[in-house]
């Protein structure tokens, strides 16, 4: 086995391969990165371990390009942030450095995390390692592809409506969106502040729990960070799931679901049943409004969050003869890509006087109902099980001209962000075209332990994670 294929857990347990680890990964990147294009900034050959001790001592961790790393280019895959080097570390970066992790390059993404395919990047599209003609999902497509192609050991992504879980599902790796408030957002360049959450993309469940141990916890710099005790998530692994009650929401298993995805899900349910999980049909009645509500709230917040990119202080600036207004127009007109402009315009519209009540305010009310659906369901069950996405990865270019169909690929992941609950995507099969399928587990707020024990139990009973892309 090559060192680059190791997981963090294996490296720590065996305490092997650390010396060869970074050079092995660099060789791997040299061999496959031209095909994948997972990185916006490739890891520097000089990147090496500061210390072997610490939870992630000497483990390379790549970072999605919307998370600030001090004095290193952070672009959100956008032209408008060209040349921007943050003068500070994001809280997750401080914690990773503290744990001994090696920062392993910046990964590609949809510009400002706007998209589900990593095609909306100023630096070009990333490919799915399992089939280069297919998208890796998005917006954390670079992170998921880098993990799947063994170009990193761990990657850190962000998830606003499925941006960790959907690409993890498309690339056959593990993606966790923690509970809103579990991980500090300080230093994550905001897309939609009330929905954004940072989380790990890893090769297995153990690494996911290990990484969450490092990056989670209260941060006084983030007012939305939760000041609650944090468990040792590794301890959840291997716990018995006999008698666990899992809900199957009827709204998620409708005609919109691809038959091959449905088949993989049914098989996964059988595996979990054999482990003693009890499946209960449930209803989440407001599911059908989730996508609409999401695209109102997320774009409203985004329109305001992206206002600061104006060419005044940092990043790209285009001036013309029309003074300050001219500079704003030229900078934003040339600096933002199509999807970013579309979302800023949508968000500006829904917040405008005369439309606010009809769109934004109403969306907030429905968001409360969606959250209540989950609260009610969790009175009877311990977790919810669904597909991560209604289909496996789609072809490059297939949906880029049709934003609505692109938005619908997040239909199963969006609700967790609206409700603020944790969710994980793990591999649960392949389509006959050889594309991975993902299983999503959702749990109560701050109950990541149930996600880990369920996902780990399933992972140990199956071999999907061992199927590597042929590159």
């Amino acid at each position, binding site marked *: 086995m090559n060192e680059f294929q190791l997981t963090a857990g294996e490296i720590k347990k065996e305490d092997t391969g650390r010396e060869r680890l970074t050079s092995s990964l660099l060789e791997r990147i040299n061999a496959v990165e031209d095909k994948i294009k997972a990185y916006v900034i490739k890891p520097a050959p000089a990147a090496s371990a500061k210390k072997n001790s610490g939870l992630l001592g000497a483990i390379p961790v790549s970072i999605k390009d919307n*998370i*600030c790393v001090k004095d290193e280019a*952070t672009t*959100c895959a956008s032209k408008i*942030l060209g040349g*921007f080097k*943050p*003068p*500070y570390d*994001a809280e997750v970066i401080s914690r990773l450095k503290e744990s001994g992790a090696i920062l392993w390059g910046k990964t590609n993404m949809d510009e400002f995390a706007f998209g589900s395919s990593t095609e909306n990047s100023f630096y070009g599209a990333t490919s799915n390692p399992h089939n280069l003609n297919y998208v890796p999902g998005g917006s954390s497509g670079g992170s998921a592809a880098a993990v799947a192609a063994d170009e990193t050991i761990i990657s850190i992504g962000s998830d606003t409506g499925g941006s960790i879980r959907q690409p993890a599902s498309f690339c056959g790796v593990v993606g966790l969106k923690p509970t809103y408030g579990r991980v500090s*957002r*300080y*230093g*994550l*360049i*905001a897309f*939609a*502040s*009330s929905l954004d959450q940072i989380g790990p993309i890893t090769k297995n469940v153990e690494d996911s729990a290990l990484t969450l141990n490092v990056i989670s916890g209260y941060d*006084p*710099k*983030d*007012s*939305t960070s939760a000041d609650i005790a944090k468990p040792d998530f590794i301890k959840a692994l291997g716990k018995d799931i006999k008698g666990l009650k899992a809900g199957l929401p009827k709204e998620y298993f409708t005609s919109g679901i691809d038959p091959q995805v449905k088949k993989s899900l049914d098989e996964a349910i059988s595996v979990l049943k054999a482990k003693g999980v009890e499946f209960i049909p449930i209803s989440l009645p407001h599911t059908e409004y989730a996508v609409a509500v999401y695209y109102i709230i997320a774009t*409203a*917040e985004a*329109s*305001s969050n992206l*206002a*600061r*990119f*104006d060419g*005044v*202080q*940092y990043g790209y600036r285009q001036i013309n003869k029309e003074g*300050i207004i001219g500079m*704003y127009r030229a900078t934003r007109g040339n600096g933002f890509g199509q999807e970013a402009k579309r979302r800023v315009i949508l968000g*500006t519209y829904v*917040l*405008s*006087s005369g439309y*606010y009540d009809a769109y*934004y305010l109403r969306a907030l009310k429905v968001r409360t109902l969606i959250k209540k659906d989950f609260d009610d369901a969790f009175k009877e069950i311990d977790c919810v099980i669904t597909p991560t996405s209604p289909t496996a990865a789609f072809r490059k270019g297939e949906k880029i001209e049709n934003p609505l169909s692109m938005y619908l690929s997040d239909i199963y992941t969006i609700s967790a962000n609206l409700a603020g609950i944790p969710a994980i995507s793990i591999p649960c099969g392949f389509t006959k075209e050889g594309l991975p399928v993902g299983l999503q587990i959702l749990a109560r707020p701050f109950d990541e332990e149930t996600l880990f024990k369920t996902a780990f139990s399933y992972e140990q009973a199956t071999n999907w994670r061992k199927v590597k892309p042929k590159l």
Partner: protein
Amino acid sequence: MNYEPVIGLEVHVQLKTESKIFCGCPAKFGAGPNTQTCPVCLGLPGTLPVLNKKVLEYGVKTALALNCSIQPFIKFDRKNYFYPDLPKNYQISQYDLPLSYKGYIDINTDGSIRRIGITRLHLEEDAGKLLHEGSDAASSYVDFNRTGIPLLEIVSEPDINSPQEAYEYLTSLKAILKYLDISDCDMEKGSLRCDANISIRPKGEKKLGTKTELKNMNSFKAVRSALEFELIRQTKAKENNLKITQETLLWDEKMQKTITMRTKEEAHDYRYFPEPDLVPFVIEEKDILSIKNNLPELPRQKYSRLLASYELSEYEANILTSDKNLAEYFEIGAQIYKNYKNLTNWMLGAFLSELNNRKIAPENSPVAARDLINLLKITDEGKINNLTAKAVLTEMFNSGKSADVIIKDKNLAQISDKGMLSKIIDETIKENPSPVSDYKNGKENALMFIMGQAMKKAKGKANPKIINELLKERMKNA
């Protein structure tokens, strides 16, 4: 037709907290450009605001002093607009649920008390400052030191009926804020800013007319002048059947007139929505109570107390309590000097004029209350006369020396020695034969003249009481 104005005022005050509202940067005035900034107040991508709890305490304190109700549930909103002094291109402010609402201030106008309603009080962050270079402003610079300084916006009801009342309202409001010690309230430094709304309507009419908003006034007097100008402009427009348009006007201090800044059609749509980076929270009843119990004595209370305790006139009490530090100065003095009448006369006369001449605030007076009282006591004892005392006070302000030292150094002590004074009187009578005979022939006024001449001879240092007695006696016998 007779028109009456309807005026409402919006006042912004910078709170003098140690640090800014959403980060740890110092909130001091006057530092070098961009030296008091950090990633948070620069609005750098990825940064998040954290509320400074002191700001909330100051807000609640003010709300209670203005008789406002406190919102049990506090949240912030984003006010979206593009401007280069606003690094995020939105301002964190409060929209539909302000910190507090529905209060009032009692103001004194024409000897009667008028109650002016307060609509709302809310917290927000200040913006930066633009500096333009060159006559055509070819280059512009931004100083972000001011970005994130906590601001309290105080909006009045349109209860104000004249430009003078607006002036009184601002004076009373400033006094309250100074008493609370929450702001410097210095309009020149921008720590207090005021915008005014004004419309007119026929007297007795209930319906409001079209209002205009006035900006750019940098003193309370300018607010009054701008309102006076606008009142006349609107009245003339009505009388000539011209339409008054809803617009924002800038006060031009030099030209003493208003000029159009923007009309309603150009008005912003601020797209307010709840600030998702700050969690809403509840102010505990016990915290409000504790702030309430620790409120300092406020201007109206101090006024009533001083009026009752020190035999003052309403006018005197009003001036003394218009400034907390002036009132405190008075009370320190009154503890060690029981002739309140004389103390008041001195403070409102010579003392205030010395301060005003030097543009010094009472708390920065080089002459402490104890030193002033010492001067009054020396005068009472007859060591110097009143006229000399005033000169000594000026010298005390100039040199910082005590009254005793100045009197000694300059040999200003009064001559009360009867022998010496008799000699002076003898000489004076000898030198002024005709006024002396005038007096003897019944011209009472002539005595004043002779007295003046004697005083002159004594270089102003003669004890006026003794010299008067001696002179009268001598004239009887002469």
